[in-house]
């Protein structure tokens, strides 16, 4: 089954390119560490999910590029075409002349309705190319105007028009120290709208990705390209094919469906995060060897201590003793907060994958009481190595990991809202104070739910 990707705004398009590039590069990687037959099945599966075939044999990404100004999409299209390995469809791009001005209201209320038909037509065309549609993957930032506002609008439309298909939104959480002044407003409006219309929100924080680049990849002058590549690597490690229950050479057919089934048991809890291990620069890779035991031990601790990478993990954090009540909101500001999970999915790729022991993740202390670990925890495997890593493990989790960042953003947006700053920029385009209040209410509800998990 295929996934149609919608790339929105500068962020969405820049990331989208890196994602398709990572997927393609990995699927054509010679060091698969598996049999030729397995490798071919892997390649074919990846191809079916993300690329369609064109006459001259160059795979075409199953993607629609949307932006309200042309510079980035032009760049993205030509970068892909120049690589000679894969490309975007000639007519898969929709862009306008003037951006959204970092204004969620403009993206949602002006651009949305104005270009609804054109954008949905493009998506429809892409859907028709699929034999069978698994769902949509929408890449967007929260801080800007197009990705956030138009992204919310398009997601809503997808819900109406393709009610039987799944939608996963990849959203980018902006730097805490500020990239766009109205980023908190744009973020809460985006999150509240997506919470109603999307099936799952896969969140990546710029701060976390930045740290990975600095500490693990040892990059001195970090560019957005570097950050996007780390992100693409993480997404690739989740979305590349893994075996279905039938065993090797039979790859999972419905990646989005399976992800949703495993990770989103309840619509109140939709926020997912990815952790990946190991992650390092190519130079260091040559000198490292790993054991599954070591990798999984680190990954588990990363989960429960809410660490975003394998360096600087707090080993003091332990799961609470069963029987004690959860601490509630007061614990938000306390140090050793244990990260409670609702559901977890571990994906293992590479050598001796069958020997990996995942007992640590099946501990009921890690999970909320209303799900049995057997339902809350799943594991996918494939012998086929991912992107030069002999062994690699990814963890997709639905847990409290985003609780603090969410609470922080809501708090900052609320302070700004209380002083009425910048509100006139939104009311100008039809987003009223009431709409803000609705968003705040919904998100406070989400914060409370995750807090009391």
């Amino acid at each position, binding site marked *: 089954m295929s996934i149609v990707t919608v790339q929105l705004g500068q962020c969405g398009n820049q990331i989208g390119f890196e994602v398709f590039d990572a997927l393609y590069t990995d699927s054509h990687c010679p060091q698969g560490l598996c049999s030729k037959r397995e490798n071919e099945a892997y390649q074919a599966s990846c191809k079916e999910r993300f690329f369609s075939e064109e006459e001259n044999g160059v795979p075409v990404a199953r993607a629609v590029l949307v932006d309200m100004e042309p510079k*980035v999409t032009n760049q993205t299209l030509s970068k892909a075409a120049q690589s000679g390995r894969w490309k975007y469809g000639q007519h898969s791009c929709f862009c306008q002349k003037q951006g959204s001005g970092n*204004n969620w209201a403009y993206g949602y209320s002006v651009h949305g309705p104005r270009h609804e038909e054109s954008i949905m037509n493009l998506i429809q065309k892409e859907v028709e190319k699929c034999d069978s549609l698994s769902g949509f993957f929408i890449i967007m930032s929260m801080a800007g105007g197009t990705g956030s506002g138009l992204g919310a609008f398009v997601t809503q439309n997808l819900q109406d028009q393709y009610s039987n298909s799944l939608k996963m939104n990849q959203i980018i959480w902006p730097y805490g120290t500020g990239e766009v002044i*109205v980023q908190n407003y744009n973020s809460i409006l985006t999150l509240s709208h997506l919470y109603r219309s999307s099936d799952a929100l896969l969140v990546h924080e710029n701060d976390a990705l930045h740290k990975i680049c600095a500490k693990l990849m040892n990059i001195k002058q970090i560019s957005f390209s570097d950050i996007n590549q780390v992100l693409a690597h993480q997404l690739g490690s989740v979305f590349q094919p893994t075996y279905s229950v039938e065993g090797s050479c039979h790859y999972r057919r419905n990646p989005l469906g399976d992800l949703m089934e495993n990770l989103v048991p309840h619509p109140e809890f939709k926020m997912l995060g990815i952790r990946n291990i190991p992650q390092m620069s190519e130079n260091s890779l040559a000198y490292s060897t790993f054991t599954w035991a070591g990798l999984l031990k680190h990954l588990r601790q990363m989960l429960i201590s809410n660490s975003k990478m394998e360096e600087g993990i707090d080993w003091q954090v332990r799961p609470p003793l069963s029987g004690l009540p959860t601490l509630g909101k007061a614990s938000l500001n306390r140090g050793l907060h244990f990260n409670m999970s609702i559901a977890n999915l571990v994906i293992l790729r590479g050598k001796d994958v069958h020997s990996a022991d995942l007992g640590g993740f099946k501990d009921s202390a890690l999970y909320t009481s209303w799900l049995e670990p057997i339902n809350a925890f799943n594991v996918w495997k494939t012998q086929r190595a991912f992107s030069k890593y002999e062994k690699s493990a990814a963890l997709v989790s639905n847990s409290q990991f985003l609780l603090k960042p969410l609470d922080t953003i809501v708090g900052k947006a609320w302070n700004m809202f209380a002083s009425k700053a910048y509100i006139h920029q939104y009311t100008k385009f039809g987003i009223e104070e009431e709409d803000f209040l609705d968003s705040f209410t919904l998100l406070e509800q989400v914060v*409370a739910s995750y807090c009391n998990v």
Partner: protein
Amino acid sequence: MITKGAFLILSLKHVLMQVNFSFEGNGTFLCISYYSQYKAQIQPRYSEYHNHAVLIDMEEGVVNEILQGPLRDVFDSKQLITDISGSGNNWAVGHKVFGSLYQEQILEKLRKSAEHCDCLQCFFIIHSMGGGTGSGLGTFLLKLLEDEFPEVYRFVTSVYPSGEDDVITSPYNSILAMKELNEHADCVLPIDNQSLFDIISKIDLMVNSGKLGTTIKPKSLVTSSAGAVKKRHQKPFDAMNNIVANLLLNLTSSARFEGSLNMDLNEISMNLVPFPQLHYLVSSLTPLYTLADVNIPTRRLDQMFSDAFSKDHQLIRADPKHSLYLACALMVRGNVQVSDLRRNIERLKPSLQFVSWNQEGWKTSLCSVPPVGHSHSLLALANNTCVKPTFMELKERFMRLYKKKAHLHHYLQIEGMEESSFMEAVSSLSGLIEEYNQLDATKSMPVEDFPRLSIAV
């Protein structure tokens, strides 16, 4: 008094056709509508570069000079509106008399220009506040643009009169113009000649100090035009005007060129104007020059960020570091990545005061293409209470004149002008100053969070 303006046109991405001209005249100003740069990319020949400028002056001297000078191919007579007698340093003449006289003509030229644009994003108005034409007719034009093109942003670069200004009526003209700026401009970038002059003096000192080993890279001066490093600035206005030209170039660079984090012009207003009246932005440009031999990239880069906040680099007499920030934009050009930006924001943040509801009030952009002669550059725009002293001084100078009713009759004899016009203008300015006062009062108060909505679980 001679007020000069200059306009630098960087027409093509790779072909560095840098053209510079200067013009003299009382209150001459340019009104330019901006359009996307990529159009120029497909028309690589300079002579085909289609600019959308309207040049207006109520005297012919300056505009004629332009048409005979090196920019004669850039502008043609269809873009001009001129008269003969000038406005006599009288805002009322510029605004009321010439306004009504030329309204239709101006509108017609603007409409024609606008038709050529794929997508009209904003108007740039460049003028002085102290004279008659730029100040009066310029602000008349503002209202006209608001009515005719309500959805197009209006950016105004205003040259405020310095202390040693020898136009006696400049306080009147400035205050009358301020009211219009308050009400009809989306964003104002105030500039004063004294600050520009101080900057070029600093550069002169550097160039002529003959320090051992310090050679300035040619073309790298923020004041340079065609490249040669002048020994001493003969005509300071040329250099001063170039600074303003560079300001506008850097402001529009991210909209014209590619980068990893683009910033369109409509984002400036969105991010830097929290309340409609508070739309005055203090600007600073760094570096002023680039030393040829220095080989310590990171330190030099960080120095650039530090300089942007020093009072010596501001284009108006202001000290943002010791006042209150409502918002700040950092527009970087050249080989600078997001990590450099983040590192410097974190480094400088503790020494700056931001208003309680915008503690992380940073807007950032990264444009890959640096300006000519530099490897990187930074334009900082600050919405900061440090503009207040400028406005207060202006008000004081106005009151000194007005109390004695000096020169008032020149204004009152113009139809449509009454004493109430003056009173309303002062009142508008007082209101603005009061807003800044209230914000300043919050400076030393502790930052408290507003109580959040409580949800029944």
